[in-house]
């Protein structure tokens, strides 16, 4: 187990390292000259050269990569190019916190509901309840989140006026005081995932209910309730962990559309804005955060899954 955890950890670290190289190269490949962008169109050639050497832009590529990487490791993410003087570190932390709150809120909403719906549908496949749930979740999956988002704004902000249309947060107030602003982004984010996880659990329930060991448990005379709690649920819900993890990783950095629709200040929008303004340090830091978040969540899932599923726990040596 320790050796497994250690080797998975090393793998995760390697993935992050490889991703950091890719991120750095992508930033390099972006068109435009950073110095030019900072000083503007009418800058003189001397001032450009001076700035380039000050920023270290004339050093060779690999040196600059290692400079950047060692900065990242020391916690120095540089300063923003577009917002003069703003340090990237604190900016990223603030945005990451916002993204985390959004992701956590979505998960708290999605997981119980999808489990409930999935189990209810899976228990009686073919029943009207199952069919209703199946059709609804398929609908949820089919709607892109910006459509759901716009629809939500139309209903709750424009028509009913219950919630603010913009979810931009005020810096001066803590995020928890601004919860109403989170409701609509969470709902918009949840649609697809709710549908996806529900359907996954339903399929898994149907499979386990048809399994030989469920039949064996029933014919032991355990009674329906015990068969379900002891034999069915655990085996049916376990695979859902992986699906949830993938979605969680996506929530942390990939909710671009929703963040843009509601003007929510999360990491995804930070990166998007940085790309627009050729703000290389912010973009690099934001992307790196997304990668680290995604890989960390998956690493955690691997470990958790191993602890919960005895088959993986013991048979690892035979891979």
């Amino acid at each position: 187990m320790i050796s497994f955890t250690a080797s998975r950890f090393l793998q995760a670290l390697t993935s992050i390292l490889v991703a950091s190289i890719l991120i750095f190269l992508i930033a390099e490949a972006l068109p435009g000259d950073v110095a030019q962008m900072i000083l503007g169109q009418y800058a003189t050639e001397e001032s450009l050269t001076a700035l380039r050497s000050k920023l270290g832009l004339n050093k060779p590529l690999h040196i600059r990569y290692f400079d950047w990487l060692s900065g990242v490791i020391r916690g120095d993410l540089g300063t923003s190019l577009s917002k003069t003087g703003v340090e990237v570190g604190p900016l990223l932390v603030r945005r990451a916190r916002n993204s985390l709150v959004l992701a956590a809120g979505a998960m708290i909403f999605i997981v119980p509901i999808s489990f409930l719906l999935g189990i209810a549908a899976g228990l009686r496949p073919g029943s009207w309840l199952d069919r209703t749930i199946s059709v609804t979740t398929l609908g949820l999956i089919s709607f892109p989140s910006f459509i759901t988002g716009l629809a939500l704004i139309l209903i709750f902000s424009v028509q009913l006026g219950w919630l603010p249309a913009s979810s931009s947060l005020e810096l001066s107030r803590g995020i928890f005081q601004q919860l109403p602003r989170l409701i609509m982004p969470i709902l918009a984010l949840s649609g697809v995932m709710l549908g996806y996880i529900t359907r996954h659990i339903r399929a898994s329930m149907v499979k386990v209910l048809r399994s030989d060991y469920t039949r064996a448990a029933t014919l032991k005379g355990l009674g329906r309730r015990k068969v379900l709690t002891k034999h069915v649920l655990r085996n049916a819900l376990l695979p859902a962990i992986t699906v949830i993890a993938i979605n969680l990783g996506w929530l942390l950095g990939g909710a671009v559309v929703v963040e843009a629709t509601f003007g929510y200040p999360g990491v995804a929008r930070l990166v998007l804005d940085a790309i627009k303004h050729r703000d290389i340090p912010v973009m690099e830091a934001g992307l790196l955060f997304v990668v680290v978040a995604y890989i960390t969540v998956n690493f955690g899932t691997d470990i958790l899954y191993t602890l919960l599923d005895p088959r993986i726990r013991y048979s690892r040596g035979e891979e």
Partner: protein
Amino acid sequence: MTEPLLKIEDLEVIYSTDRAEVNAINGVSLEVNSGEVRGLVGESGCGKSTLAFAIMRYLDKNGKITGGRILFKGEDLRKKTEAEMEDIWGRHLGMIYQDPTASLNPSLPVGDQIAEVATAHGLASRDEAIQKAIDLLDRVHIRDPEDIVDRYPHELSGGMRQRVGIAAGLIGEPELLVMDEPTTNLDVTTEARILDIVEELTEELNSAFLYITHDLGVIARIGDAVEVMYAGQVVERGSIEELFEEQYHPYTKLLLRSIPDPEGSKGSLQEVPGSMVDLTDLPRGCNFSTRCPYRGEECFKSEPSLDDKSESHSARCFIAPIEGKVETVSESKDTGKEPIGDEPPELKREDSILAVKDLKKYFGGGSGWFPWADSDPVRAVDGVNLDLERSKTLGVVGESGCGKTTLARTIIGLSRATEGEIDFAGKDITAPISRRSPKTLKRIQIVFQDPRSTLNPKRTVGQAIARPLALHGDFARSEIPKKTARLLRSVGLDPSLADRFPDQLSGGQKQRVATARAFATNPALVLHDEPTSSLDVSVQATILNLLLELQEGSGTSYLFISHDLSVVRHISDYIAVMYLGHLVEYGRTGEIFSPPYHPYTEALLSAIPVPDPGLSRKRIRLKGSVPSAVDPPSGCVFHTRCPRKIGEVCESESPPARGEGEHKIHCHITRDELSEVEPVLG
């Protein structure tokens, strides 16, 4: 006379499918008394499992009991509610299943899965129940039961899982235990151990057992009486002694003759002609009339009833008793089969077609991410030498995990040999499949164990066979349909089946298609990896006969892999016995079946179920299961389980090959001493 424990009267079960109604059970009446073992025998689709689940009142959703009564302890189970059945299940009516792996919850320790029956029925507290589970595991001869109760199913071998299943069936002390093919998926040796346990239990307990199997050999060993089922009816019933002495129903007679006789020799087996009657459209008259070689006019007119032929023997047949011996009926003979292959094989008999020299195949091992994660390799095949002549068959036998399948996969190139050499027709072909010449690929083919998973479900039979023809044939594409039809005919299938998908074929038909596909390239060597072990005994007979016939016509050599020595005997000229990656005995078929034996071969032979209840045979049972191939025992790899281990030498030195002519036994015991044992068979 006391009331029987279970009394079934005129039971009828129908499955509704999209296309039609399947008449799975058509009026079955039978009785099971306390303390007896009643066998229920028949081919796949005869309704034996349906009957079992009907008794349990647990049919699939589309199955329905449409008539009759199931009286258990005098009460009709059909009238019970689900809640009432919950009190009966496990406590009064227990069940043991065919697939012990699928029937155990993978994420619950096995002890809990046994104990929960007792706690659910209020027979014991949890601690008492676990203690009971430990006692029961001990009773089914599991070593260290205190340790095993905390294990998960995947940590146990197949035989141990089935013993766990039996313990779970016993803990509620049910009056009737229904066993649905509990040994069908197991090795012959493991099966023998399980049957020993069942036999012990039936002697000790006063419970009744309903034992379902397709193998009459198994019933002969443990049954008191047997019911033979065909097309949802009992066609013959009798005490074990009488039924095996004389069979009144032609079906029973044919079924019994289709079992490969471990004392027989290479040659044709009896077949049950045709295939199971269509249960959606039963014939008028006798259900077996479509296949019966003895049928007369009356058989088509009315349905025979189950009549007493003696006090404890009855049969559903107008013709019975059938006088004289059964003529050999081979379905294949009268379908006008064509010889397989186009060119007459360039035969130089006695030539070696395959020579395997000191072959080793190790899996895994090497270094992980960390020095402490380094692992030893799995030594699947560890220094095997084999030689196969043209047009001959070499049988390779051994339990699961002995390396026989890896051997085949390495020979055909699916696995890369770790060490050693493979020569094919005098040429070194040790390279993996990607580096072999097309000519070599074409000349070696393989037929796998499970025809269901080796045929692409999205391709028709014709497409499956046409593919190798197109890849390797040196003829015009327009000829392919003709060649496909020819191949189908030569494996005894109607060419019209070319348009069918694998799902629409029976197991036996699928295996015929797989065989035709292997023969499409006119190979010189075909490897058969347990081609019959997932098939019914009666279907197995037809496939074995087909293989013999194809070999006679084409001169193709076979490497035939099986865990069942009696099957191998029928098809092989030479036999190699493998254990844990090593060859322990090699010789002509006759030499393997008579002393001197390798102690392992002797154990394998004594495990074969023989359909002769009167026969009392030597019982040699191996302890435990095959050790791990990661860390094989030192010296002779068999010493940890050998019933004839002579001492330290077995642990320290690898055994010499004691030979006489071609026959070689790898053992520390001298040949003379090995010769002194009594023959296991005959």
